[in-house]
């Protein structure tokens, strides 16, 4: 399998400022999503399902929940004698990673050097998608590219911070615009790059010696004239988590069978930590409609348009609509929730009423009692 010629690097922390509420006590990579997953599960499973069997996860701070989630990498089949999963936290106090991706990459040079693979696939953990990177690899080698960027064509996500490409008919990138808010059809980057390892190290060293730290600006944009940067279009379902609203909308998109069939492909499953919950039990008189429900829930109330994570309890008479309820949260009797995103271990007491709005879902902090 040619995938073994590629090493994966995941940036666990990138863009977490975009959903501050969910990332206050965790990194972007460990933000819960889709009933039983963390965002990192999508990025990591994509790599594993493409035959990549060595992955480094670059972290900055707040990575305890991520360590707990990833463990030895067993759930992704990355607990191996050779290769496998490596967590790459900041090494010693002298190294900071505050400046940007380039600096982060320079701190893991030893890890990159030690790898025998020729190519590196860089990815953030802020996109929910199921991507087969083998096609990307074929595209990259066939085009003899220095760097291949993965992009999507369409209305850009609701942020003013996209990296936008102008691409010629032979798929070569001609122009790059940074921090662009484009509310028309455009080619926006997905934060995934395939590049030869030696080339990456060379570029990183060059940037470091010039005090340049921004990967998109100082490597991609600066190199567009001298290097062959190709663009690979991903056309499947993809949900960049660019804001709290985007998170909520991506969760609701899971009710669409077309979206589910593109995200949860039987031949490329999304792996996650096993929790050994019992299957979900629906009680007498429960009403459940248009909802996406993980194992371990007990539903005795009414649930409509909701994502329920593992171990959620919905008591009798409770009515939930348009909610995302995370792991082990308890919704008390006769409570009413509408447009609510409840983090893990929240307790809604009996008769609690909380209403958000379609454009402004309410967020309830982890472990709170309402």
């Amino acid at each position, binding site marked *: 399998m040619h995938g073994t010629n590629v090493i994966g690097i995941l940036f666990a922390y990138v863009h977490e400022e975009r959903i501050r509420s969910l990332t206050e006590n965790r990194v972007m990579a460990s933000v819960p999503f*889709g009933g039983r997953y963390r965002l990192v599960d999508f990025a990591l499973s994509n790599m594993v399902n493409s035959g990549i069997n060595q992955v480094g996860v670059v972290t900055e701070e707040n990575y305890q929940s991520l360590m707990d989630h990833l463990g030895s990498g067993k759930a992704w089949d990355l607990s191996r004698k050779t290769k496998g999963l490596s967590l790459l936290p900041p090494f010693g106090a002298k190294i900071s990673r505050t400046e940007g991706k380039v600096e982060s990459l320079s701190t893991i040079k030893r890890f990159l050097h030690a790898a025998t693979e020729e190519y590196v696939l860089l990815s953030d953990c802020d996109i929910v998608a199921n991507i087969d990177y083998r096609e990307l690899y074929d595209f990259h080698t066939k085009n003899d590219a220095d760097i291949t960027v993965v992009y999507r064509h369409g209305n850009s996500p609701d942020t003013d911070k996209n990296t936008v490409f102008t691409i010629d008919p032979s798929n070569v990138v001609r122009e790059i615009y940074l921090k662009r808010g484009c509310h028309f059809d455009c080619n926006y980057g997905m934060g995934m790059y395939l590049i030869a390892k030696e080339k990456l190290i060379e570029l990183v060293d060059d940037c470091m010696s010039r005090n340049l730290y921004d990967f998109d600006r100082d490597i991609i944009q600066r190199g567009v004239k001298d290097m062959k940067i190709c663009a690979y279009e991903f056309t499947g379902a993809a949900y960049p988590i660019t804001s709290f609203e985007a998170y909520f909308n991506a969760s609701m998109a*899971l009710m669409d*069978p077309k979206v589910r069939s593109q995200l*949860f492909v039987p031949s490329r499953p*999304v792996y996650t930590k096993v929790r050994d919950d019992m299957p979900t*039990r629906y009680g007498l008189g429960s009403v459940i409609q*248009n909802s996406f429900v993980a*194992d371990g829930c007990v539903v005795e109330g009414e649930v409509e348009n909701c994502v329920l994570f593992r171990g959620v309890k919905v008591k009798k008479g409770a009515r939930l609509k348009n909610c995302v309820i995370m792991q082990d949260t308890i919704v008390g009797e006769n409570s009413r929730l509408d447009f609510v995103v409840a983090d893990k271990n929240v307790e809604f007491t009996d008769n609690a009423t909380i209403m958000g709005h379609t454009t402004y879902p309410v967020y309830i902090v982890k472990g709170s009692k309402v």
Partner: protein
Amino acid sequence: MLPKQEVVAMLLAGGQGSRLGVLTKNQAKPAVPFGGKYRIIDFPLSNCVNSGIEAVGVLTQYQPLELNEYIGSGQPWDLDSMHAGVHVLPPYQKNKRSDWYKGTANAIFQNMRFIERYNPDYVVVLSGDHIYKMDYSKMISYHKEKEADCTIAVYEVPMAEASRFGILNTNEDGTIYEFDEKPKVPKSNLASMGIYVFSWQKLKKYLTEDDKMPKSQHDFGKNVLPAMLNDGEKMFAYRFSGYWKDVGTIDSLWESNMDWLDKNVTSDLIQDANKIYSRSEVLPPHYISASASVQNSIIAEGCNVYGKVDFSVVSSGVYIAAGAVVADSIIMPGAVIEENARVQYAIIGENAVVGKNAVVGKRPEDMEDKDNWGVAVVGPNYRLAPETVVAPKAMLDADEEEE
């Protein structure tokens, strides 16, 4: 020499389980799916781990493929440790002779070398056909406290049903004075659960002697235990209360799955932090559509439900189409119930397909002659043609499928 293990568990998983018919035609009984995401063997295996038993031998013989694959390295049950863990023990060829396992006792006898490697003090013998959660360490403590040679777990069954079980008659101090296999007139209601704790040296002696007896059936219940009792060894009954159910027949398998819907039963089985572990498929959460209606049911991950589900257990990866009705039934992993099909009082086997408008099973109250009523079974991988009607009590086998 491996580090000593005080207790080694031996799980008898080699029987055919022929009373489950088509469900055990191509796989051993302990591998039969249960409760939405489990297989029967998950219960004794998880009990072992949760009781602190680290060395487990699983004796296989009949159709072991699925079971071997399922157990694998033992990792899902945390039984993949360096010096112990779970080991699958099929019959094997020996220097002078090679034998199938001739009986439950013979299966253990043939694997004495496996047990000896751990130099244990006690051996727990378990079977793979019951649904229950039990802390074996408490039973072992009882065995030690009584300085017993053999302790047998017993369950109080209703006196009226006692004649269906192997009954133990005990003295007041808990010692056993008589085994009564399916007695016509039972003297007690203590049914043997098929869970035995032996002091290893004693068991070893009796297994070796039993092997030399030409007329023995090499069975624990018929030969070894009576021999020990005859010799006046110290044999105690250990009372267990809590949920316990045999799943050896279609009816009891169905009933036990239905018990699973009872809040009191499930909370009994999940009351403490010790979970029932299983090797689960990697599947997304289940989706219940706006057209669906689900009540008093268990639904596992990976399902897509567009129809109506009442009083049923729906296992991993099942698809229930719009207009389909599933009531009082067990749908095993990967099965598909197509549009407007009706499934009631039925078991649909793994990866079976129930075609459009087909009707499987009948409610007992709709039967004219109640004696003909029973749970209908559609075997694993069976493709039931649209519009077909399957009578109650019927059992469909994919190998005999009509073209």
